[in-house]
């Protein structure tokens, strides 16, 4: 940042990497920083070498990066989220390790593993990554993969737009990742409240990294929301009325609506902050008529619906798995639909509870406090519905059910601490303490993370053709449950003892026992991450034994289980005619569900295109250039994006046609395979005898 802005390299120079920090001053903080950057660099190099060695670049480009297939896009979203999850969990562990060593003394008031400024970067990136680049891609990926299959649709309504959305999200994630190596990240927390994040108090590139990552990926999420909504309204199979849609589709619809109406608020607040920082506006400054309180207001207008954007897909997953693994019909379908829609709408009326203590009068606080307590009611209805679904069912304790049980036990505690916080007078006592940190981790980890991992476990065979190892899956689930309990329950206690959140240091020795317990929980979370990785690896190695070509390993009742595993590009050989709510289950009840369609037709699929990839590259270049004030690159990439869109609009693009003969051949092979496989009973579901063809006489859903 020394000297002026170079016309070619902007503010970039050789002093921006953590290695220069390390050379200047060797301590644990710079070692951690340089270590993290080295992991990124070495990981990048290792990936490059692996892909070159295995000659994967061609297939990666042809089959994945240029594919407009919603299923593949969904898988790529989830892969992105899992990479970011690894970074997020490791950062969380470093923070726990830091606080376990951060007891200040009179002689040395500041201590601990990392420097205060480094700690602030850690909690800022941790929050940003976990919300925007783990939770969001996980749920968007899962919806992309599952939604068209459950609706009986061939694909999303706008396949190429879908690609662009993925590209924009990946570009945002890339900006966050590169901030590890080039420059610093912001220190204002994941919410980046001004005036602290304004130009006067945070002059460097850190806040800009956040702003551009959020602006770019937020745009992607808005587009995704529109894509989901149009798909649900326009692409349902004939006969798939709204009240016949599986619950996961309903929660996806709620998510789509909330994405469309909530994400623009984030874009607006970030854009206003960007204008403050780049163009000397005064939206949120202290002087010249700025009002920083309006930032909190607009940000949380997005932020609260966001919480429910995260949790509702998990609710959808839990609705599916509680029914499937209990061998029972979902209890209270209509009440679950009404509850989901109520949550979607009420979530727009509660945002003020994130800033109860900002200084508004009691009447305002009470109004929003009451709204906050009301939103707990539909969530309670759902919990009872799932428990009633499992009641007296033949519950198989598979991995998703372990997650569901963990969710039942822990999420309710998190929800109740939320109801406590909804009371403004209590909120005044514990706001900005680790009690709050414990609360939101207590809803997000058992809610979103468990739900998404359960969903990944449940639908994994559909994507790759083999089940995940149940043994390792359950071990991972237990570790995540244990890790959560040990990490975050102490934070409730610490919060009540008066420990402020985001403290790089503290002086009260009474905190230490709880800090050690929390640090132990952090170790368990790391183990859970390792176990999750091992689950994928060991399942991949045993893929022959775990293969389920029949495509219905759990005796499911929704349409996605009627196709082979892995599901072909065209999903359904012939778009199904839906006659009942649990269409696949009703077909099982009626006798042979695997009947071939009467005739096969040519299938039209969207052609592969590099459009999304190119826009992602341009968006990343735009963000990076703006962060470092490389104006020529910023202008170039800003013009490139609408240019590419216009260019594509002017070209006639032919779809790919899959001939009827090819579809027929593949489908007949699948039907013959079904006939040759031995049906598996529920008792044998976890054994190698499960080839994806269930004993339909056992179906009771």
């Amino acid at each position: 940042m020394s000297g002026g802005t170079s016309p070619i390299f902007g503010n970039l120079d050789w002093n921006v990497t953590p290695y220069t920090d390390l050379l200047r001053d060797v301590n644990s903080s710079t070692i951690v920083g340089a270590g993290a950057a080295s992991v990124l660099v070495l990981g990048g190099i290792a990936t490059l070498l692996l892909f070159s060695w295995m000659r994967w670049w061609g297939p990666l480009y042809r089959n994945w990066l240029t594919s407009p297939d919603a299923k593949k896009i969904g898988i790529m979203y989830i892969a992105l989220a899992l990479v970011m999850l690894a970074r997020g969990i490791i950062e969380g562990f470093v923070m726990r390790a830091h606080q376990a060593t951060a007891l200040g003394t009179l002689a040395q008031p500041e201590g601990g593993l990392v420097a205060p400024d480094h700690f602030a970067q850690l909690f800022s990136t941790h929050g940003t990554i976990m919300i925007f680049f783990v939770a969001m891609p996980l749920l968007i990926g899962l919806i992309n993969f599952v939604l068209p299959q459950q609706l009986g649709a061939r694909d999303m309504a706008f396949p190429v737009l879908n690609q662009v959305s993925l590209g924009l999200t990946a570009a945002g994630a890339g900006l966050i990742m590169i901030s590890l190596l080039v420059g610093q990240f912001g220190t204002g927390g994941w919410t980046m409240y001004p005036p602290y994040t304004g130009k006067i108090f945070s002059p460097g590139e850190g806040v800009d990294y956040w702003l551009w990552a959020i602006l770019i990926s937020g745009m992607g999420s808005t587009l995704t929301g529109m894509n989901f909504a149009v798909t649900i309204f326009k692409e349902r199979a004939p006969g798939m009325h709204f009240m016949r849609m599986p619950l996961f589709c309903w929660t996806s619809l709620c998510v789509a609506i909330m994405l469309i109406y909530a994400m623009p608020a984030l874009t607006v607040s970030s854009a206003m902050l960007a204008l403050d920082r780049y163009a000397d506006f005064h939206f949120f400054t202290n002087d010249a008529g700025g009002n920083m309180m309006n930032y909190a207001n607009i940000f949380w207008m997005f932020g609260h619906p966001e919480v429910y954007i995260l949790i509702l897909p998990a609710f959808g997953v839990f609705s599916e798995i509680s029914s499937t693994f209990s061998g029972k019909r979902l209890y209270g379908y209509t009440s679950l639909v009404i509850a989901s829609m109520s949550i979607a709408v009420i979530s727009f009326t509660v945002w003020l509870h994130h800033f109860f203590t900002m200084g508004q009068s009691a009447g305002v606080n009470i109004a929003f406090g009451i709204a906050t307590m009301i939103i707990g009611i539909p969530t309670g209805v759902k919990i009872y519905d799932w428990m009633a679904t499992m009641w007296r069912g033949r519950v198989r304790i598979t991995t998703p059910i372990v997650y569901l049980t963990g969710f039942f036990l822990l999420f309710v505690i998190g929800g109740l601490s939320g109801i406590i916080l909804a009371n403004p007078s209590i909120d005044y006592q514990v706001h900005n303490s680790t009690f709050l940190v414990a609360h939101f981790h207590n809803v997000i980890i058992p809610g979103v993370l468990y739900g998404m991992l359960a969903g990944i476990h449940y639908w994994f065979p559909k994507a790759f053709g083999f089940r995940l190892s149940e043994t390792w899956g359950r071990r991972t689930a237990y570790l995540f449950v244990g890790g959560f309990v040990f990490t975050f329950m102490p934070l409730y206690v610490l919060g009540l003892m008066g420990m402020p959140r985001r403290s790089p240091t503290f002086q009260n020795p009474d905190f230490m026992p709880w800090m050690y317990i929390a640090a132990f929980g952090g170790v368990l979370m790391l183990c859970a991450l390792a176990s999750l990785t091992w689950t994928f690896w060991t399942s991949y190695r045993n893929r022959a034994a775990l293969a389920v070509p029949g495509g219905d390993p759990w005796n499911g009742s929704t349409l996605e289980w009627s196709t082979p595993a892995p599901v072909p590009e065209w999903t359904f050989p012939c778009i199904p005619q839906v006659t009942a709510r649990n269409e696949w289950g009703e077909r099982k009840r009626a006798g042979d569900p695997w009947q071939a369609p009467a005739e096969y037709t040519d299938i039209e699929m969207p052609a592969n295109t590099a459009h999304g990839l190119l826009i992602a590259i341009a968006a990343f270049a735009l963000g990076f250039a703006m962060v470092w004030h490389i104006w020529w690159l910023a202008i170039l990439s800003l013009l490139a994006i609408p240019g590419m869109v216009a260019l594509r609009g002017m070209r006639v693009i032919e779809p790919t046609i899959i001939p009827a003969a090819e579809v027929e051949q593949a489908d007949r092979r699948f039907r013959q395979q079904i006939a040759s496989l031995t049906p598996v009973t529920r008792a044998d579901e976890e054994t190698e005898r499960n080839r994806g063809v269930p004993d339909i006489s056992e179906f009771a859903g």
Partner: protein
Amino acid sequence: MTKPNTGALDPQQSANSEIKSYATGFVVSLALTVGAFAALLSDLPATWKVALICVAALLQIVAHLRNFLHLSFSGRQSREDLLLVLFSVSLLAIMAGGTWYIMSDLSGRMHQASDSNAATHDVPTR
């Protein structure tokens, strides 16, 4: 699924009316934008300027929805479109009304004693 899902219109036939609709929308939007800038540069009192710009913005939203996004209250999709508009308006009312409620309350508590300086802020004052 080779059937188009856009209502199976003859593209050649609808192209004319489509272009007309887009052109109208473009001209109207352009006029409203120029009008907003004209209002800003004029010598009108500040309140009038703000009001004119807001009205121009709202009209432009209507023009976009009608001419570019094909929103209509007659025809095959009228019910869906009506629900969409009602839902959007109610959510926007919650957001805008809530902001007004919160920010005017905060502003009242912050600037009650101060002079008319507060009135020039972008926050509505009581």
